[in-house]
């Protein structure tokens, strides 16, 4: 055995000598390196997007007061047009323009540069080929192009902060006509007629989106082809780990839902650069004067095309998370996933229905009763597969001998958090209730419960779970616990009060947290002498601090973590068959699959897990029911 590994190591060393540093770690075509690149870039963007929100929370909790400590630096970075001095002359009060651009970029970065690359692309790239027993993705070069296209998109988005006029300010939804007419600084456009039209926040946002859409397209083509073509011998469809199913459905959502947004982005870019009016109606009045356009467009067209993407996008955000949780739960409860087949069908129905619910984001746009009724019905229907998934995961815990490892802590917390997020969405599905709750903090709390303590907790669970595979070392358990409990408390401190604020009518885009509205002063700020805005803000900063143990743990464990073997979690799926970390080409020899993905605690078996690659021998109890 030792001889074999030595031989194997020598073999791979020889293989790697052909590649220089740049080809091996930067412009790599290896799915594992690309997965790690995606993961690290995505986590950095997640933290950056969160930092924007931590700055905004200062403005919401203490409107008009200068940022303490970093106010001067803040002004240096964003310029004195965007950051003003407070009444005492201290620099560090963000303008409403900067607040808006932070809000828009927070949403964009979290969704397109944070969660999709991490939950979908990073784990998908790293884990999917390993789990199906493939040597790599089908199109390694396209895979690399996908990462670099994503990277360029991120660079363009970040660069937009430093364009004249600042980054995009029209929300992550970029609703027209607002998004068509903002962000162009007249003096700059006059000085540079062509550059002025492109180098401004919203145009850069669109260009960045085009790169990101291209990246997702290349990625999803690769995933689907890989899953269909490169499954190891014996890996039949119903033996696929649940995570692979989740990735397959997610890939289809990205593949088919993103192009309409690309079409819409092209329309909006034409509106901004070539003077068309796809989304501008005739006779539009801006700043008291009718703007000089041909007219004839419709802002509703943007909303339709945008939400045709953005609703499936919601499921793109959550499905990989559910997949990760499925893996972690099965492994740590030491029993098969409850209702694996039902979960697979549910995830398909979910993906399918997610395409025909989009207009529930648009109840306020003046759709008639027939259309509203249609979309209400489909929206309620989509809650059925979601509930099936959640129920199956909760029932999987039943009767299990649960190991509360760090990934399992996050996975256990995921279940109620996802439940709260999902159930609070049901009132929003109804037209009549939505008219009241639309654009309030209630909506913010609802979808953040799904993506923040939902998907982001799933991402953390995945990082802790697959870290030993990627590095050959464990992450520290104590620091993991610290990270988990602090994050869990603070994240609820952020989002629970938002339900209350939203039901009291607090609007999501108030720049001063409602301080300037007499009504909101009483209900949002002074209710029982308790200031929810401050509670939320302090929780947000606490959540920021709670990530420090994770960051420290992540980097220190790469070098100083406890070294482990191939299968530290006693798991069944194929990725644990490969060496940790797996070499280029992944497996020692092409794996073969002989059984389902979750054969834990099989009665009569020698161990409490049987790997998928374990052949069914005639002496082993093949049908345990008969043995008793």
């Amino acid at each position, binding site marked *: 055995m030792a001889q074999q590994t030595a031989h194997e190591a020598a073999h791979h060393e020889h293989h790697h000598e052909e590649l220089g540093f740049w080809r091996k770690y930067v412009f790599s075509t290896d799915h594992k390196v690309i997965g790690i690149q995606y993961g690290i870039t995505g986590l950095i963007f997640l933290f950056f997007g969160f930092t924007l929100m931590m700055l905004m929370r200062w403005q919401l909790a203490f409107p008009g007061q200068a940022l303490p400590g970093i106010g001067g630096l803040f002004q240096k970075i964003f310029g004195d047009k965007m950051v003003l001095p407070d009444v005492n002359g201290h620099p560090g009060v963000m303008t409403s323009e900067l607040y808006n651009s932070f809000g828009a970029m927070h949403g964009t970065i979290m969704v397109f540069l944070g969660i999709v690359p991490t939950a979908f692309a990073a784990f998908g790239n790293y884990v999917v080929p390993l789990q199906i027993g493939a040597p790599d993705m089908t199109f390694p070069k396209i895979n690399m192009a996908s990462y670099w296209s994503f990277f360029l998109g991120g660079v363009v988005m970040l660069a937009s902060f430093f364009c004249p006029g600042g980054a995009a300010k029209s929300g992550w939804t970029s609703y027209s006509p607002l998004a068509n007419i903002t962000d162009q600084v007249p003096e700059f456009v006059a000085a540079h007629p062509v550059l002025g039209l492109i180098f401004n926040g919203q145009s850069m946002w669109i260009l960045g989106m085009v790169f990101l859409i291209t990246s997702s397209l290349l990625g999803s083509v690769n995933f689907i082809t890989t899953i269909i073509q490169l499954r190891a011998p014996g890996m039949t469809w119903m033996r696929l780990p649940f995570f692979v199913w989740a990735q397959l459905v997610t890939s289809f959502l990205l593949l*088919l839902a993103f192009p309409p947004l690309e079409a819409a982005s092209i329309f909006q870019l034409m509106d901004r650069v070539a003077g068309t009016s796809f989304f501008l109606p005739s006779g539009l009045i801006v700043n008291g004067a009718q703007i000089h356009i041909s007219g004839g467009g419709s802002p509703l067209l943007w909303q339709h095309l945008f939400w045709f993407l953005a609703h499936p996008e919601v499921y793109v955000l959550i499905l990989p998370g559910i997949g990760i949780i499925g893996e972690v739960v099965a492994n740590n409860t030491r029993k098969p996933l409850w209702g694996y087949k039902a979960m697979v069908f549910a995830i398909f129905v979910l993906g399918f229905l997610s*395409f025909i619910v989009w207009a529930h984001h648009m109840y306020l746009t*003046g*759709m008639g009763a*027939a259309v509203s009724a*249609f979309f209400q019905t489909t929206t309620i229907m989509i809650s059925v597969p979601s509930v099936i998934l959640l129920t199956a995961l909760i029932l999987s815990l039943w009767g299990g001998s649960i190991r509360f490892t760090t990934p399992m802590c996050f996975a256990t917390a995921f279940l109620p958090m996802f439940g709260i997020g999902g159930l609070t969405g049901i009132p929003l599905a109804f037209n009549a209730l939505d008219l009241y709750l639309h654009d309030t903090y209630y909506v913010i709390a609802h979808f953040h419960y799904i993506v923040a303590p939902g998907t982001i907790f799933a991402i953390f669970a995945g990082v802790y779970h697959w870290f030993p595979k990627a590095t050959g070392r464990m992450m520290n358990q104590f620091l993991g616990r610290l990270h988990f409990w602090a994050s869990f408390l603070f994240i609820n401190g952020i989002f629970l009060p938002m339900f209350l604020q939203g039901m009291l009518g607090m609007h999501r885009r108030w720049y001063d947290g409602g301080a300037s509205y007499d009504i909101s002063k009483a209900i949002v700020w002074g209710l029982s002498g308790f200031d929810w805005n401050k509670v939320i803000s302090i929780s947000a900063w606490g959540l920021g601090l709670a990530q420090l143990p994770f960051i420290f743990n992540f980097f220190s464990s790469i070098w100083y973590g406890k070294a482990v073997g191939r299968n530290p979690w006693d798991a069944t799926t194929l990725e644990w068959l490969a060496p940790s970390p797996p070499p280029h080409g992944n497996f020692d020899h092409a794996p073969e699959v002989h059984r389902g993905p979750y054969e834990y605690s099989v009665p009569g078996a020698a161990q409490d897990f049987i790997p998928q690659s374990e052949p069914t021998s005639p002496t082993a109890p093949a049908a345990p029911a008969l043995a008793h």
Partner: protein
Amino acid sequence: MNETHDPQHDAAHDPAHFNKHVRGYLVVGGALFACTALTVALSYVDFGSREANIIVAMIVATVKAGLVAAIFMHLLSERWTIYRFLLLTVFFVIGLFLLTLLAYHNPIRM
């Protein structure tokens, strides 16, 4: 003339088999030319209303598109995996069109 140097020539690449295909491709090409001429000619005939004219032109275009997809893109004899992708896509494209139209035709009446 190096094409005779073919190490992998086998029965699957039987020239007669492909000659038959080539004839088929030329016939389809001819049909597409004819349909294009037809569509231009028909656009100068009034079928009663603008809607009728559009429907006639779209029928011809769909026939042409069908020919290209079925023969040139080999969809007539393709695998089910690919049919599944396309059925899904067609469903969603139709959904995109229909629901957008539905929303257009059913606004709140003041």
